């Protein structure tokens, strides 16, 4: 194909023939047994047995090696820098926080419970002061006690965004909204603990003083970015290669993109930790470059589960559903998959044109492109994922996307086009990540259904690893004419603030890494967010969350595709397995155990 022009053409023909023969032989596989929905000879707990409930808790034994596989490494294992949900989940093996998510299935898993602290915060001063006391007997991997100063230093690292970029910055935004503190590496005080918003009167007490109250502050402290870090062990940008452990396991070895191994931290005491059961002796991760290969290893039983927890690839999924249904769970992921209309690109500045696209799209087709009702999820009808308090699921469906209009309503869409002043339709461009085949499939589905209302769409597949600079740059979006952007979003913590603030608040529009793709500048929505952070009671918070969702949908900025679901694999050997809303429907890694430690 490249330079071998002079070689024989017959050779080419033989190669092609061999390729076809290979295809025909692989075609002969497949078919097979049926394990049924219930537990089986293999010991698998059954289909959906660990979805929002605990499967086989009593079968977990101490010891053994828990084997993860993954197609994608973490962005960083540094507690300050990781932003992948699976990294937050896994980081609980080697890090502890003042408070953390409950180790319970389903919605309870998203609630906050004390970890290093003796109890959840004592909130005073109208929600502006949070006080914690540290537990006795909490230690680092070298046996020294974890102090309130270590917690403060760990949190201060969030300010050092120039060295430690990548992680969530909620704590920085809430504790130091004006950006006065320069971070521990530029701190001129002797102990590097110059951040005024956190006080450590003694080694056991830590006090947070918020300039403005924020009702989700404790949720932010439950993120792993609030983990303690010890100053003498801080290797700055290299910390992610070997974090210093405060949890039941510590790093034994790590080669990025190849493998990672955790071993028991012998200094960690079960009595000091109400959350972590620490069943296995060792935890390993093996990284693969090919998702199909990973699925094969899961199916064969070599590995226990997928670290990434983003569902199996179509190939492995089909085999698993047909032959090993008892090893699968089908949780709701907490992600909403959607198309969003940047208002800077005409004619999407006009609400009627946005409505035309929402009404004209074939929502069943989009759902099928996402993987169908099981592997893709239920048709999305609004923008708040079901795991967030205040969400109404499919009950709130202002455009009747899951009912009357699910196949697309051409008449209503055309009426909207007329109202928009484009009775004959228009043409626009869809921006879609080139490394997500499912998203490309949804773009094609949208293209096909919009053609029926006269909207001609061109699909631009951009480099998926460059999201921040391509669709995250409003000026680039405008220049390229991206009228429709296909994306997905999951909550950082389950609240309307943890999900929607970066997407819908006018304050979060930025020139790079922007997530408010629609460029929503709605005073009503901004006002509701301001009101939300000062509302301390749960009922009030829930009500505001619902209102914000309604305002966003009324603005027709988004076309939701699905409330996402996954098909996730658990091996026959896993015990005490459950999905948790705290980590977007993933299995709660920290308490997984093995039935047969010798396997």
């Amino acid at each position, binding site marked *: 194909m490249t330079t071998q022009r002079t070689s024989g053409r017959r050779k080419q023909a033989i190669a092609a023939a061999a390729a076809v023969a290979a295809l025909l032989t692989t075609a002969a596989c497949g078919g097979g047994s049926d394990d049924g929905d219930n537990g089986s000879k293999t010991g698998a707990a059954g289909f959906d047995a660990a979805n929002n409930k605990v499967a086989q808790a009593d079968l977990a034994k101490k010891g053994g090696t828990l084997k993860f596989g993954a197609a994608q490494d973490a962005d960083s294992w540094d507690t300050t820098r990781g932003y992948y949900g699976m990294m937050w989940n896994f980081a609980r093996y080697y890090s502890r926080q003042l408070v953390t998510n409950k180790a319970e299935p389903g919605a309870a898993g998203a609630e906050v419970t004390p970890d290093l602290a003796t109890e959840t915060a004592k909130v005073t001063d109208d929600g502006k002061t949070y006080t914690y006391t540290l537990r006795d007997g909490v230690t680092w991997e070298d046996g020294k006690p974890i102090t309130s100063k270590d917690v403060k230093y760990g949190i201060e690292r969030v300010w050092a965004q120039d060295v430690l970029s990548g992680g969530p910055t909620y704590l920085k935004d809430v504790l130091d909204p004006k950006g006065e503190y320069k971070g521990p590496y530029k701190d001129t005080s002797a102990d590097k603990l110059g951040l005024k918003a956190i006080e450590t009167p003694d080694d056991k007490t830590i006090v947070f003083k918020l300039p403005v109250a924020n009702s989700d502050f404790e949720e932010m402290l439950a993120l792993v970015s609030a983990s303690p870090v010890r100053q003498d062990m801080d290797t700055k940008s290299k910390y992610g290669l070997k974090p210093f452990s405060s949890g039941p396991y510590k790093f034994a070895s790590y080669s990025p993109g190849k493998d990672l191994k955790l071993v028991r931290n012998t200094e960690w005491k079960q009595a000091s930790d109400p959350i972590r059961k620490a069943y296995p002796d060792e935890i390993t991760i093996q990284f693969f470059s090919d998702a199909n290969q990973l699925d094969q290893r899961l199916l064969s039983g070599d590995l226990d589960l997928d670290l990434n927890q983003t569902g199996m690839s179509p190939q492995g999924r089909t085999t698993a559903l047909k032959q090993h249904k008892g090893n699968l769970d089908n949780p709701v992921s907490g992600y909403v998959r959607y198309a969003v209309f940047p208002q800077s690109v005409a004619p999407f500045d006009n609400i009627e044109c946005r409505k035309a696209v929402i009404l004209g799209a074939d929502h069943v087709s989009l759902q099928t*492109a996402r993987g169908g009702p*099981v592997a893709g999820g239920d048709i999305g009808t609004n923008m708040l994922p079901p795991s967030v308090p205040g969400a109404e699921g499919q009950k709130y469906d202002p455009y009747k996307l899951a009912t009357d209009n699910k196949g697309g309503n051409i008449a209503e869409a055309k009426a909207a086009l007329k109202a928009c002043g484009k009775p004959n339709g228009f043409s626009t461009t869809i921006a879609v990540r080139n490394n997500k085949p499912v998203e490309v499939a949804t773009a094609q589905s949208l293209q096909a259904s919009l053609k029926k209302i006269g909207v001609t769409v061109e699909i631009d597949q951009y480099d998926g690893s460059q999201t921040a600079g391509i669709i995250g740059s409003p000026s680039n979006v405008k220049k390229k004419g991206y009228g429709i952007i296909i994306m997905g979003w999951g909550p950082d913590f389950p609240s309307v603030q943890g999900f929607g603030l970066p997407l819908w608040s006018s304050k979060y529009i930025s020139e790079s890494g922007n997530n408010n793709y629609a460029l929503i500048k709605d005073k009503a929505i901004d006002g509701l967010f301001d009101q939300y952070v000062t509302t301390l009671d749960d009922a009030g918070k829930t009500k505001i969350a619902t209102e914000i969702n309604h305002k966003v949908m009324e603005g027709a900025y988004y076309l939701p595709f699905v409330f996402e679901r996954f098909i996730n694999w658990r091996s026959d050997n896993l015990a005490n397995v459950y999905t948790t809303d705290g980590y977007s429907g993933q299995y709660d890694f920290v308490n997984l155990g093995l039935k047969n430690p010798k396997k």
Partner: protein
Amino acid sequence: MTAPLHEPTAEAAPSPAEEATVATADAKAVQGRSLGRIAWERLKRDKLALSGGIVVLLLVLVALFAPMITSILGQDPNEYHENLIDPLFGTPTGSLGGISGEHLLGVEPVNGRDILARILYGARISLLVGFLSAVVAVILGTVLGILAGFFGGWVDSVVSRVMDGLLAFPQLLFIIALVSVMPNDLLGLTGSNVRVFVMILVIGFFGWPYIGRVVRGQTLSLREREYVEAARSLGAGRLYILFKELLPNLVAPIVVYTTMMIPTNILTEAALSFLGVGVKPPTASWGQMLSSAIDYYESDPMYMVVPGLAIFITVLAFNLFGDGVRDALDPKASR
């Protein structure tokens, strides 16, 4: 070749070999046969090459009339038929990838587009890119090769070094990089047309040195022949020698290399579409179909087999035909 006499009484006995030729050809009006005619006679005897040629012809017709054929079949390459898809697995519900009286080669997974219609439309892209990029390469290669060979000196040095450079250039990587910085609109073209245009130009551009080297070599040897000397001594101009004396004698190798280049170009197009830098969706292309079939090679193998076979048959047919053409034009060439 001697010309037989026209007197009916002439009973001069021709040699047995000549007699046989006369008998099998037209006995009445046997004339001196042109080079092309001799080649055609030889090609006709090569059954394998002929069948390759027939397949090529059919492919061209199918590509030209793809819209008509699909409308007769009642199919559209971009129409979704999701009712034929199993929502749980995303694969067609029917057996063998959803083959039915309506969808003769089945439907695609997930969206249920008719595979036959997409194969037919895909043939348009494959052949268009294959032919036109070969044309670009032939024009560039012939002109530059003949100039380099005929003039020699610094012209030859420059052209030869450029050819060496291009042969060493990583063509596939270059196209991938080029496509990612391509604008969506170019010279009034949009969407897939831009990509097709770019592919034709780039594949053609990187292909010309192969022809250029052959033409240059042939020209080098031909320009010293007696008939060129004769023309020159009779005062023929350079242009006359180039186009009237040299070019006709270069036609055979050029034709051979063209037939050899088309299937390679078709494969390059398939590879580019496979890698996602070929035509844009929803335009159908064989390489793009193969690429999306990877996710279903176990659950819906037909989806991979059909475009695979299409590429296989096309390349095989072109290669068989090309082999035949070469043998016919130059029977003494070694294999």
